[in-house]
């Protein structure tokens, strides 16, 4: 049986099918399923959440408006820096709770061994027994401080994994819930980096969340799907 093409099915999302198309759809479960999938994807697109505006967005707009005389002098209340950061900071703190818990749980939900948490462990290869390597003296340089952060993070994950094993998988986190949480962290830290692009702590969280998200996506792909769907996007044809 030759099926209705995807493009024709896409048309049928808006237009009534012809008699022949109706007859085909009545007898072809595959085409009906594709049509439903197209509709579901459109609904999902409509439900995509808004992206956070850059943290520096208002200051740029305000500056331009003042330059054009569209804002009366003295008519904007000064706001403390902390009020701009409180909400995203709280969001990061809340999401980090799930992120850190899930980092340990990710070890239990095995994909490629050793793949997850790679970014956190990359600082010094301190994947195991790192407690003995933790530095107790104040770091004398930025490099030493970075190594100490990496060592502490690796030690924390090890301890968390041991705890999870002993507690019988009590830290199990649904990988898709974790993926959603990681997305939230990436968006929030990206907005925070707009304000403080050089902040090492925010950069660290952002990179760690990105790394975890990518590793988790790879695991989900391997565990739940067949071969990855690789296609080549063609150049868009000109309008005419």
């Amino acid at each position, binding site marked *: 049986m030759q099926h209705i093409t995807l493009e024709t099915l896409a048309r049928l999302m808006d237009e009534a099918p012809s008699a022949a198309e109706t007859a085909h759809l009545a007898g072809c479960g595959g085409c009906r399923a594709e049509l439903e999938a197209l509709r579901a994807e459109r609904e999902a697109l409509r439900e995509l959440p808004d992206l956070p505006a850059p943290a520096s967005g208002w200051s740029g*707009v305000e500056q331009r408006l003042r330059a054009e005389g569209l804002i009366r002098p003295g008519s904007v209340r000064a706001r403390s820096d902390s009020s701009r950061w409180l909400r995203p900071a709280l969001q990061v703190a809340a999401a980090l709770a799930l992120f850190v818990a899930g980092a340990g749980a990710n070890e239990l939900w095995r994909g490629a061994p050793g793949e997850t948490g790679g970014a956190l462990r990359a600082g010094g290869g301190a994947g195991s027994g790192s407690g003995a390597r933790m530095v107790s003296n104040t770091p004398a340089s930025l490099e030493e401080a970075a190594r100490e952060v990496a060592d502490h993070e690796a030690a924390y994950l090890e301890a968390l994994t041991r705890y999870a094993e002993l507690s019988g998988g009590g830290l199990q986190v649904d990988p898709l819930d974790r993926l959603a949480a990681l997305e939230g962290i990436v968006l929030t830290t990206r907005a925070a980096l707009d304000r403080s692009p050089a902040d090492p702590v925010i950069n660290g969280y952002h990179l760690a969340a990105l790394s975890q998200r990518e590793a988790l996506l790879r695991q989900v792909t391997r565990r739940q799907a067949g071969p990855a769907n690789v296609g080549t996007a063609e150049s868009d044809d000109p309008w005419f």
Partner: protein
Amino acid sequence: MTENELILRARQGDGEAIRRLYERHASQVYTIIRRLAGDDALAEDWAQEAWVQAIRALPEFRGEAQFGTWLYRIAVNRALQGRRERERRAPRELPLPDIVPAGRDDRPLLRVRLERALARLPERMRQVLLLHDVEGYTHEEMGEMLGVAPGTCKSQLFKARAKMRQMLQSAQPTREGEQVCSI
């Protein structure tokens, strides 16, 4: 304070009223511009310009439509104008390859996959898909905004939907290559 009160004050140069309007609509404006622009830096610039244009044009806002709708239209036009300016200056870039992780059709993963697939759509297709299926513009409105016939918008929309579906499908023989069903 109601939005109408904010608009009235904003017209008089009240910076606080303008800021509050900004905070109410900033995410929506940025979202549509970002998805049309496909680039963070461009999106930030264009969003800023859209806001300035809107505040500049505030005396002309008559309240026949919702403020958000009116503002949104300015934002969309700014993004589309921005894309046209870029196309005139530089050759159109080829879109990235379609490597979208397949997986169970669950919401969080689907959202990630949708954003990625959207970013990978050829630009014209992305524009019509966003403007029609997400923002609800008609083919006639899109034709006016994009400078093409409504029928062209329609056919591009169907191609865009099919392309998205293709990118999001798990590995199965593509349906695009099959012959048109002889009906």
